[in-house]
């Protein structure tokens, strides 16, 4: 396997994105305003009482939780990949790529990685500023092992989120219009990945479903690892479930790709 060509794809991806600075600037504003809103809401819930504990979270722990979800989201959540992939399939642009000696999944992953890397680099000063402003509330993990586990589960979360986007985009081989399907999956992702509230605040009878759901491992799980709320056996088990979901989605994605190619007839191209 020749990695040089995917490195080139990565580089072109970086250049393409850097042209559009306004996009970056406004996206970060749109990202930060709701975070501040959320913090205000929870502060009202805690009634300015630092000792108060709600569902095993102090106010400071909850702030750490939300700040970390913002960080993980910026690091790993794909922004346009599913639309671009579906667009390439629908408009027949895929044909040009099929002629090249490229593995399409690897090609898309290189583009995804370049966009995430650049986006993270640009947004990092802003994220660091948020962490600095909230420093009174944020506790960093004391153990090296926690950092390593967080790093590993974030990488797995990135693979998982990319593969979900890729798999959903494969539907474009069968349906012209996948916007509604993307949004239906996105609405599940949005609430069940823990973006709105920590999932352990849900009632006890839902917790088994939370444990086995793939969405849990897209964001909530790495953050829990970072906060030291998952340790020992639970950590090993969680990362195993996360890795299993990555594998399942990879198999699903490649199966759909092969089946889709057999139907593909390059509309208009």
């Amino acid at each position, binding site marked *: 396997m020749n990695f040089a060509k995917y490195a080139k794809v990565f580089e072109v991806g970086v250049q393409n994105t850097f*042209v*559009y*600075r*306004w*996009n970056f600037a*406004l*996206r970060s*504003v*749109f*990202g930060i*305003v*709701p975070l*501040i*809103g959320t913090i*205000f*809401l929870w*502060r*009202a*819930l805690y009634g300015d009482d630092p000792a108060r504990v*709600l*569902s095993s979270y102090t106010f400071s722990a909850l702030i750490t939780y939300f700040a970390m979800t913002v960080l993980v989201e910026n690091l790993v959540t794909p922004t*346009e990949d599913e639309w671009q992939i579906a667009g390439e399939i629908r408009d027949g642009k895929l044909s040009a790529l099929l002629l090249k000696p490229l593995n399409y999944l690897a090609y898309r992953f290189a583009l995804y990685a370049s966009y995430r890397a650049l986006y993270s680099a640009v947004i990092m000063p802003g994220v660091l500023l948020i962490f600095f402003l909230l420093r009174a509330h944020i506790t960093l993990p004391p153990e090296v092992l926690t950092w390593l586990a967080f790093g590993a589960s974030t990488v797995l979360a990135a693979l998982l989120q990319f593969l979900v986007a890729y798999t959903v985009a494969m539907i474009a081989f069968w349906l012209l*219009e996948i916007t*509604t*399907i993307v*949004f*239906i999956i996105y*609405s*599940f992702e*949005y*609430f069940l990945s823990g973006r*709105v*509230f920590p999932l352990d*605040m*849900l*009632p006890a009878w839902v917790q088994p479903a939370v444990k086995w759901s793939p969405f849990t491992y897209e964001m909530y799980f790495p953050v829990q690892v970072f906060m030291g709320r998952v340790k020992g056996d639970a950590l090993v088990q969680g990362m195993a479930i996360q890795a299993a979901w990555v594998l399942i989605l990879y198999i699903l994605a490649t199966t759909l790709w092969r089946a889709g190619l057999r139907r593909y007839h390059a509309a208009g191209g």
Partner: protein
Amino acid sequence: MKRHLAIYRLAIRNSLIRDMSFKLNFLLWMLVEVLWFIGQLAFIEVLYGQVDSIAGWTKWELVALVGTHQIVAQLFQAFFYVNIAAIPELVRTGRLDLLLTLPIDAQFAVSTRQISFDSIVNALVGGGIVVFALLKLGIVPGPVQIALCIAAILLGIAVHYSVMFSLACISFWSVRAQFIHGYFNLFMIGRYPEAVFRGAFRFIFTWLLPIIWVSNAPAQLLARPFDNPWPGITALASGTLISLAATRALWRFALRRYGSASS
């Protein structure tokens, strides 16, 4: 004026025909919005599993607020969202030319191209939730409150419109303006009770850009009759006037810069 109305009637008719010819899509879009709404109600359930009141708001008052937010957001989506979100693409491809040559106001032409009927249905769902919350609260609003509430909702839609339209105008300078789709994030803070916000953030989003009032003002009128409604309504009314005027100025300024794509 008469010509504008006639054209708008045609746009409504065409949109209805379009929505009805893609019935499955129509239903799926409704499903998306219903899922979001259920998620929000689940969030309220989680919040009130922890405490009994948030900044003085009880559970059903907050449900009424989220329902009102749904009404405003969905009506805005029904009449303007798709049109404004399409502006960057019109500019990029140069298809704006066609709209500029029409013998009607250009801003009117780009703002009213289509209507999404699924969003109107969803606004009605939001209305149903508000009514349900009011029943739970045991409140029957009088005609004055209802009239003021409708006025506040219309002002809220106007605020939505001018903020998003101004953002779309950026596409005249920056070719790719996909950030426009992240716009709804900004308005999420409108679902929270205004009493939770403080400091500079509160000042910016209640007086400079009255996003917080967009849902809070109409919801207060209905669900919290003991609150003084006038600060909210005043902020909304003045905010609407200023932001609409600013939008108009920005649009004209941007158009002067427009040089079409291919010519």
